[in-house]
């Protein structure tokens, strides 16, 4: 545990990706496989499900720290993180054990996981015992683990890179092995860094290849005829895998979602064994895309009734072919992969759940510009540009794939509420609510958290503190005078929102200190942007 706590502190105290990878690689190089396995699990975002209701943990902490509930809540507001609040409030540990005596896997297997099946009284005793034994970072990490909120600024890709660095195994092989249901045991860790790479579980997807946002002019990419242009769809990026007579659907987030898309499972039956297609799960009807909000109605549902399946059918818009007849095609040039993809999708045409991602004809870069201008009418969010000779790489790399998103929608709105953020933003007001004018009234329509610089956030925070009209718990109502340019990606009618519209991914583009609230946009402007009802 101590070693893992040291690793956590090393990752937490730097913003350098290289330093994080080095810290992890050092850890993996020296840790026991059983500990390394759990470190991989937690670092890549794994969390044991629902061990103890969080409020119960908070109650025990209040009792142990002898702090009334209201004061506990005040502390939580100030810290912005429950696990840290508890770690800071608890009395000093009474009989700190040598934490090295109990390694990470022992903490997890013998102390953490059994909590799930204990009675409340047993849980309380176990948690209090751990609090009394642990101090400092270890106590904080324990709290993060029992509240299921352990998070540290590394991605699964960085973990894979660190494992590759520590073991000498190719990063792609590691990423492939990590995908899917990886179980954190000493055996699977040993297999993860094993030299023999023929082991890959049939269900596992390839690491997704991601594009960077286009920088500079199109002309800087060279001859337009060397590029393939496609629409950039706003759905769920996924790989559909057909191996050993079974179909699997994996999202880019590393989630196995096969059961949620029965249309795709059925479509998989039309594919030959040993096929992997990369594409976008899209809500699709009458040959065209539905708004993303429709897909959201299906995400998260455990059971799908006939009604929702009929209202929001999905397809896989097929972008790329990564495996054919069990052969890894990723180093084959895109043009050849695309030809095979077209053949496969065509052969599976009995199923209407496959749509070959349409190619935007590209003779000159002006063709791309015209298509880009037209993207929104197709419910696409821009264009993808891929070199015809490009490989399907690993992770996000610059050079051969670019995304070129359409300009976002934009309105000038007035800030009306502010509240403190979480984590590193806990002491500052960083979460804002924005409104537009409707006659004499201001109608709140969007919340945004990102887009300002740290310096702007501090200035705005000081202003908010001095211009608060009213307070509702942590939320402050402020004088409606500050104007911000907000950008967002989509807009939909929504009876659930007071304003009658819902905007997708709103963020702050800039602080319009040159504008007064009277010069901000109105609700009419916003409604004018609504797409025609579908």
């Amino acid at each position, binding site marked *: 545990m101590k070693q893992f706590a040291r690793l956590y502190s090393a990752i937490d*105290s730097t913003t350098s990706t290289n330093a994080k990878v080095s810290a992890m690689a050092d850890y993996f190089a020296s840790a026991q496989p059983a500990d390394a396995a759990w470190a991989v699990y937690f670092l890549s975002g794994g969390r044991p499900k629902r061990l103890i209701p969080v409020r119960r943990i908070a109650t025990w902490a209040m009792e142990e720290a002898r702090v009334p509930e209201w*004061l506990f809540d005040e*502390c939580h507001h*100030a*810290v912005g993180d429950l696990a840290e609040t508890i770690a*800071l*409030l608890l009395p000093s540990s009474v009989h700190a054990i040598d934490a090295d005596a109990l390694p990470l896997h022992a903490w997890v297997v013998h102390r953490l996981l059994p909590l799930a099946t204990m009675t409340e009284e047993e849980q309380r005793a176990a948690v209090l015992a751990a609090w009394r034994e642990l101090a400092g970072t270890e106590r904080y990490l324990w709290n993060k683990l029992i509240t299921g909120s352990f998070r540290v600024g590394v991605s699964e890709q960085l973990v894979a890179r660190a494992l590759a660095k520590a073991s000498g195994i190719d990063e792609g092989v590691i990423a492939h092995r990590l995908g899917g249901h990886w179980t954190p045991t000493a055996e699977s860790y040993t297999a993860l860094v094993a030299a023999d790479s023929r082991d890959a579980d049939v269900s596992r997807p390839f690491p997704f290849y991601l594009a960077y946002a286009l920088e500079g002019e199109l002309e800087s990419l060279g001859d337009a005829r060397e590029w393939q242009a496609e629409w950039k769809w706003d759905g769920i990026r996924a790989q559909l895998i057909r191996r050993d007579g079974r179909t699997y659907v994996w999202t880019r987030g590393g989630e196995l979602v096969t059961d949620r898309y029965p249309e795709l499972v059925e479509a998989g039956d039309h594919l030959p064994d040993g096929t992997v297609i990369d594409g976008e799960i899209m809500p699709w009807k009458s040959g065209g895309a539905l708004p993303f909000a429709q897909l959201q109605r299906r995400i998260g549902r455990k059971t799908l009734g006939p009604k929702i399946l009929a209202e929001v059918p999905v397809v896989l818009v097929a972008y790329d072919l990564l495996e054919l007849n069990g052969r890894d095609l990723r180093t084959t040039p895109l043009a050849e992969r695309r030809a095979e993809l077209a053949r496969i999708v065509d052969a599976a045409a009995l199923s209407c759940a496959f749509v070959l991602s349409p190619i935007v004809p590209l003779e000159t870069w002006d063709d791309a510009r015209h298509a880009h201008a037209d993207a929104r009418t197709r419910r696409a969010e821009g264009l993808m540009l891929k070199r015809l000779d490009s490989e399907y790489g690993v992770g996000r790399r610059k050079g051969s794939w670019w995304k070129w998103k359409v300009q976002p929608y934009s309105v000038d709105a007035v800030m009306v509420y502010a509240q403190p953020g979480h984590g*590193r*933003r806990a002491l500052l007001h960083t979460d804002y609510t924005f409104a537009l004018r409707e006659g004499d009234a201001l109608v709140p329509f969007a919340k945004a958290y990102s887009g300002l610089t740290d310096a702007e956030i501090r200035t705005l*925070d000081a202003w908010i503190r001095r211009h608060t009209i009213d307070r509702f718990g942590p939320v402050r109502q402020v004088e409606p005078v500050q104007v911000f340019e907000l950008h967002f990606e989509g807009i939909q009618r929504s009876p659930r929102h007071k304003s009658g519209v819902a905007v997708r991914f709103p963020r702050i583009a800039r602080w319009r200190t040159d504008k007064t609230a009277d010069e901000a946009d109105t609700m009419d402007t916003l409604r004018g942007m609504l797409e025609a009802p579908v």
Partner: protein
Amino acid sequence: MLRLTDRGLYCEAADLYIDPWLAVDRAVITHAHGDHARWGSGWYLASREGARVLRTRLGDDASIELVDYGETRTINGVSITLVPAGHILGSAQVRLEHRGEVWVVSGDYKTEPDPTCTPFEPVRCDTFITESTFGLPIYRWCAQDETFADLRAWWRDNASEGRASLVYAYALGKAQRILAGVAGADVGPVYTHGAVERLTADYRESGVRLAATTPVSTLPKGTSFAGSLIVAPPSAAGSPWLRRFGDVSTAFASGWMQVRGARRRRALDRGFVLSDHVDWPALLGAIEATGAENVWVTHGYRDQVARFLNERGLNARAVASHWEGENDEQPAVADEGALA
């Protein structure tokens, strides 16, 4: 005896203010931080121990009358005594006695020992007006010996890898406490930002023993900073002044460093928990030691502390002041930077 006005805490009987935030005729000053000692008042009463730093802050023209700790001055029947507050050099609590009633205004204070100033002394009173900068139970300071050991270890590690160590600390008080804490630590040279150096000179002239320092501005171009410790005000963060140091590890010494979010937000390599204010247990202890029935709670977590005290049977009220204590964003730093 005291009431809050739009200029600050006012004692009508003696016709004077304590740490007023606007210019007044007569002001009693608890200490020289910018939010407590403001320019422009006609006459100031302050402690002799802090004379030099207060003069640096208020300028040559200010009319300042000095008293020793414990020495009583009577104005219109109000006995005024300054008592050590242990916050920074010269910091004082103000004890006011009138017709048998005693009020004490704490100013900013800490009860931990600090080699750069006279230690805090508890004073019995009827009404105690206390600060509450760190008035939440999450703020419990670790032993300062540990903090200084950590700081020296960090400096040593950096030095062994050829890096400079830069610690941000408020130019008045915290910077000198660090300089006292690293005196005799044989690692490398100690350099200062101009704002720190000027007040450090005031401390030395006042008889406080500090590590030897050299202002960065006096060093020849091309000086290597590897292995050195640099002490700068927080306002220097992110400024071009930092470019000259090359490979440098940065840290901030403040009570706010207790919370991870505050460390992360500043993108620092290290945060050292070192405060010149009382933590939660010391705050409660100090209030109890006064024996006061009435407690006014000012700047910081005043509502929370007042509520907590009320639930414990004291007669406490939260009082809105313009004092900021160790404000995380420290607007007072702007004028510290201006001294550079």
